[in-house]
């Protein structure tokens, strides 16, 4: 009798020990895992704080509009760089977006054969190609052939980074549109390309815009391919056949200079660049992705309520 009680007591304490130990391990893992998240967010916070803190002191109207002064003088600005970044983003979108969208349409609407499967696979692999290789490629294809640095070469290199991203997101968002939409179009006797452009794409617009903006924010910060295609310059854009400046290139050049004033200007340029890129990213997050609580979602809700 007594021994059973004893054994019960023993088992109970063993059980307690076991559970306590396991709960302790569990708690430790929770803490470790949470600290992983904190460790990852610290650099992001530090980058943003430093860029804003140092960048804001550098920025003025002159800084945003003027050409760079002589090295180390701390005068002048990053006007050509901002202009160049906008030009290069526009031109590469001009090349990259149509190809990306058409390729996405191919993958989603005609994507049920072995050709499309291999295209999809190569698209995924190509997306991860080092950007510096694409720079070399554009250099060999354009700069070496025409014999001088060219804005087109830069735009071509960046469009190569852009179109796989656009193709991928276009495919994903076209696939989200239910088959019945296509069937309805066919039942009306519409041609396939009209169905695709007028019905499917207009329904899948927001996803596609998200993809395009994401790819724009990705190429806006690319530096390596621009080094060997548009080189960088300190003058405003004059023709397609001369070197041009861009924000990432300007940051790189400024960071190589040993002057404090150049460093400060680098932070200023970084602030402009990060505002463009984070602006696009946060904009996507809150205006397109978040349909329920985002800006557009709220507008739609309000309109519905007033209609009622």
């Amino acid at each position, binding site marked *: 009798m007594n021994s059973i009680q004893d054994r019960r007591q023993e088992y109970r304490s063993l059980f307690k020990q076991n559970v306590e130990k396991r709960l302790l391990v569990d708690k430790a893992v929770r803490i470790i895992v949470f600290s*992983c998240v904190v460790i990852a967010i610290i650099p992001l916070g530090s980058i943003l704080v430093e860029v804003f803190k140092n960048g804001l002191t550098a920025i003025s109207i002159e800084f945003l509009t003027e050409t760079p002064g002589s090295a180390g003088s701390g005068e002048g600005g990053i006007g050509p760089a901002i202009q160049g970044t906008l030009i290069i983003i526009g031109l590469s979108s001009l090349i990259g977006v149509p190809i990306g969208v058409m390729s996405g349409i191919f993958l989603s609407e005609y994507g049920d054969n072995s050709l499309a499967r291999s*295209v999809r696979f190569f698209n995924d692999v190509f997306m991860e190609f080092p950007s510096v290789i694409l720079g070399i490629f554009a250099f*060999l294809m354009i700069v*070496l052939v025409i014999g001088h640095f060219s804005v087109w070469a830069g735009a071509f290199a960046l469009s190569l980074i852009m179109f796989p991203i656009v193709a991928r997101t276009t495919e994903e968002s076209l696939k989200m549109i239910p088959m019945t939409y296509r069937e309805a179009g066919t039942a009306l006797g519409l041609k396939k390309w009209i169905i*695709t452009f007028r019905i499917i794409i207009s329904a899948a617009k927001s996803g596609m815009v998200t993809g395009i903006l994401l790819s724009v924010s990705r190429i806006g910060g690319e530096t390596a391919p621009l080094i060997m295609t548009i080189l960088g310059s300190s003058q405003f854009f004059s023709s397609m056949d001369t070197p041009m400046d861009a924000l990432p290139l300007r940051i790189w050049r400024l*960071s190589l200079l040993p002057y404090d004033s150049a460093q400060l200007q680098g*932070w200023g340029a970084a602030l402009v660049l990060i505002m463009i*890129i984070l602006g696009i990213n946060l904009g996507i997050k809150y205006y397109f992705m978040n349909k329920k609580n985002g800006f557009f979602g709220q507008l739609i809700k309000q309109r519905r309520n007033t209609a009622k």
Partner: protein
Amino acid sequence: MDKPNLNLKKRRVISDKVFKIGATIAGTYVLVIVVLIAFQLISESYPIWEKEGLSFITKTDWNAVEDRESCGALHYIMGTLTTSAIAMMIGVPLSIGIAMFISDAPPKIGAPLGFLVELLAAVPSIIYGLWGLFVFRIYFRDWIETPLHNTFGENVWLFSGNPYGLDILTASIILAIMIIPTVSAVSREIMKAVPQQQKEAAYMLGATKWEMFKLAIFPYSKTGLIGASILGLGRAVGETMAVTMLIGNATSIGAIPKSLFGPSQTMSSIIANEFVESSPASIHTPALIGVGLILLLIDIVINVVAHLLVTRMLKIKEGAINN
């Protein structure tokens, strides 16, 4: 009575055919580009293969002076592999921890944290470089490298060498930060792909949360997690600007790392540093293109393996849900 317009069908077929052909051309563009890149890199780097042969990847000289030209890329390959390996050692455990936390946290906490971590991917490489050069390097050198060097420097070769901040370790840590968003986002998707029944079964056996991860999630998602890490490795290998600004840019024999605190050079950074200054007529440009070709081959192998592993995992998921 009007006859029905029989041409209508034919016209429709023609314009649709044009549309289909246009879409197919745009789709095959990527294949054409990949083939062209391979062809261009091989043909333009041909002089260096002709001159050096396979010793190009086993030699460590790097001399572009005329008449004394001698090029070998071994030290750059080693630089890339070392920095990427250290970045993986630091970045992958962190990313898997993040993925565990976010995949398991309630959406109200998990979603914004996940977004913040993914925002790390949106920060351009050049800004990582700038931050690493002017902010991170200073703190890291004063608070971590110098104490490590002072304590272990004489006994452990890893920590010998005077810490200056522009070295392998700094570049690797920046790389680790840069691969975190990729690896953690993919691993999160993969952890979410584990069927709910597996998790419930583990909980039913009385598992704690950590035991649930050990029993249900890790065995199930092992392949996918390895794939996610290799995807991160691909990123790290191809990364250019941030590394260029932090690695210290040693060339030739000096680029062989002697310790964690020594300067080095990676394949992408040597291209970024020297490509514009090299003259296409000499052996210098072909050598750099040859380095690019090796980089591309390594990157393609890594990415193909990663994609096969990841897609296999996500395919299993679909099958499991259907059952």
